[in-house]
């Protein structure tokens, strides 16, 4: 299908919106009526047609506007993109992976023409047509990682692997759920996960690290994570907390349906071939509560998940104060009927709201 790119903003007047297409393909993260941590990894080898899981790197109606928002963040704060000196080769790996995937998966939008080390890259939605020499940084306007991730939705953590450990040694991070690349740069896997409650005790990170160290070339993996965001903000960084944190207090029973967003991260993991590094794209999807409840199954289930979530998790995810108001709103969309298993909308089999 041809994608109509939205003209929208993720700041100021917040004109971000999801079309019906985007609502129905939203990566709803709860496969049952409750939620607890798990490593919940699966292979990333496509998914149902039209779903966000189908392509290696999903492109949707928000692409052009998200890339514009990234450019605004970088202009204000260049440290959102960093790459330690030994990570340049991994940057080229990433550039190749994204260019090959996008040109193969979306040939009507992207083209890659390779003649030896002379490469021509065409990005039609962003009106880019550049020719450069592969592995020669002087032929690109930015380093290879920055160049390509200014043209690819989601955050990108490029992790070096050495001594049976992963290290946060490069990244492009402008759409994050309250963590900072500038703070985490150079840290190892356990260090940067230190703030997460409960999961350490559950041994989640030890198992997750073992799994990630063994992700092999040609066999990418994925999982989902989620949190809550008031207003459709991509940049919920600690650096800008003074700007967005206060917005959490603007929620009222009247505006909550439009302002409160479920924020879902589709996290994928790819082994990079030349550098043996691991790239960890974190793709953020936002949906307003009022759009989410148009899918009866999701309305019922979200109410039950948020109601039964342990306080530690609601605190860590930053919505403990607003939880009562969220439950007041969501309870209107929960009639107590059973929900079908799995994450899909199941519009054909799920009954309309019975109240």
């Amino acid at each position: 299908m041809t994608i109509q790119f939205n003209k929208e903003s993720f700041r100021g007047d917040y004109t971000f919106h999801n079309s019906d297409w985007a609502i129905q393909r939203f990566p709803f993260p709860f496969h049952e009526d409750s939620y607890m941590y798990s490593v919940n990894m699966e292979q990333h080898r496509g998914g149902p047609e039209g779903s966000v899981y189908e392509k290696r790197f999903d492109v949707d109606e928000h692409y052009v506007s998200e890339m514009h928002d990234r450019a605004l963040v970088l202009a204000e704060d260049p440290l959102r993109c960093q790459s330690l000196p030994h990570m340049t080769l991994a940057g080229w790996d990433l550039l190749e992976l994204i260019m090959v995937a996008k040109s193969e998966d979306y040939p009507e939008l992207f083209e890659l023409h390779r003649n030896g080390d002379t490469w021509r890259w065409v990005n039609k939605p962003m009106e880019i047509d550049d020719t450069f020499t592969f592995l020669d940084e002087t032929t690109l306007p930015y380093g290879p990682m920055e160049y390509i991730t200014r043209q690819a939705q989601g955050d990108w953590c490029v992790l070096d692997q050495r001594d049976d450990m992963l290290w946060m040694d490069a990244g492009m991070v402008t759409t994050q759920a309250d963590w900072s690349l500038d703070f985490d740069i150079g840290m190892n896997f356990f260090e940067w996960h230190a703030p997460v409650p409960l999961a350490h005790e559950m041994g989640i990170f030890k198992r997750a690290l073992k799994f990630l160290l063994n992700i092999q070339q040609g066999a990418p993996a994925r999982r989902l994570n989620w949190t809550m965001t008031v207003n459709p903000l991509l940049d919920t960084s600690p650096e800008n907390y003074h700007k967005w944190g206060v917005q959490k207090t603007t929620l009222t029973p009247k505006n909550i349906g439009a302002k409160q967003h479920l924020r879902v991260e589709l996290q994928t993991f790819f082994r990079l071939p030349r550098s043996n590094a691991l790239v960890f794209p974190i793709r953020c999807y936002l949906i307003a509560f009022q759009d989410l409840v148009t899918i009866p199954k999701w309305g019922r289930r979200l109410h039950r998940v948020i109601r039964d979530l342990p306080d530690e998790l609601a605190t860590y995810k930053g919505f403990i104060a607003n939880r009562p108001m969220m439950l007041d709103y969501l309870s209107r969309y929960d009639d107590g009927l059973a929900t079908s298993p799995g994450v899909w909308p199941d519009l054909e089999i799920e009954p309309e709201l019975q109240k």
Partner: protein
Amino acid sequence: MSAAPQKVRAGAEKIDVTISAVTPLNELVTRFEFARSDGEPFPPFSPGAHTIVELNDGGRTRLNPYSLMSDPSDLSTYAISVRRDDHGRGGSLFLHRNVSVGDELTITYPVNLFPLDLRGKKHLFLAGGIGITPFMAMIAHLERMGGAWELHYSCRSRALGSYADELKKRYPSKVQVYFDDQAQSIALENLLNGQPLGTHVYVCGPKGMIDWVHSMTASHGWPEENVHSEEFLAPQPGKPFEVWLCKSDMLIQVGENESLLEAMERSGVDAPFLCRGGACGQCETNVIESEGEFLHRDHWLDDDEHANGKKIMPCVSRFVGKSLILDR
């Protein structure tokens, strides 16, 4: 989540290849070159990576790991060099005797358990015998990227020094070759003392050489993280034994010339693995009950784990005794 749950298969992804060249290098070592059967370029690989070659030896499947030794920037071919082991279980003999140009076989995607530390200001390579192979790819890579390196290569004799002449000729100031039969040996202590700060040492060769390098660097105050080694263990033959696999609910026999992992696979058990050489940890299996003695040969478990008999690495380790029950 489960958008589309798929069962993860054991081992890395596979590539169908055709043998494009077989080149005997000397009495013991032969190089095998592969082309992709579908005519596509190979995936790029990182130097130090290995591939598992799947051989069909008269109905018996052999899966042997070999370091990729071709230039990583040449995507038209992958190459391995194989030393014939006349006393092994027959995998290398099968390659030497039965595989010729045009034959089709399957290899896995590259897996790297011996990567370069890309922070290194200089890379010091120490090779013993067939341990030269991963360094061939590392050298090609560093030459292309402009990295600093130096190779010290110890061989039995001039006649058995695979690639020694070629390397010496191309990089006369960076390569030093030592021949055992001429009583030459690497002056490791001097060599270590002369290295600039930020140097990483890599050793690939027989176990004695690896231990020597680790103890010498440790006693000279080198950080552990700056010393890297790889030794592929081939599973050794041994007395047949019997194992009860409780999850699979079956009793299997491990033959004299097969590993425990191979016996599981032969019995249709989809056991996890990657390197098949005792290094990666993927096949680690819990022991439920045992009465007898473990013959641990892996590099993965530590000494305590080897002593307490609660775990076994079925790719290289064996068992002698009355009964063994595994959680598989």
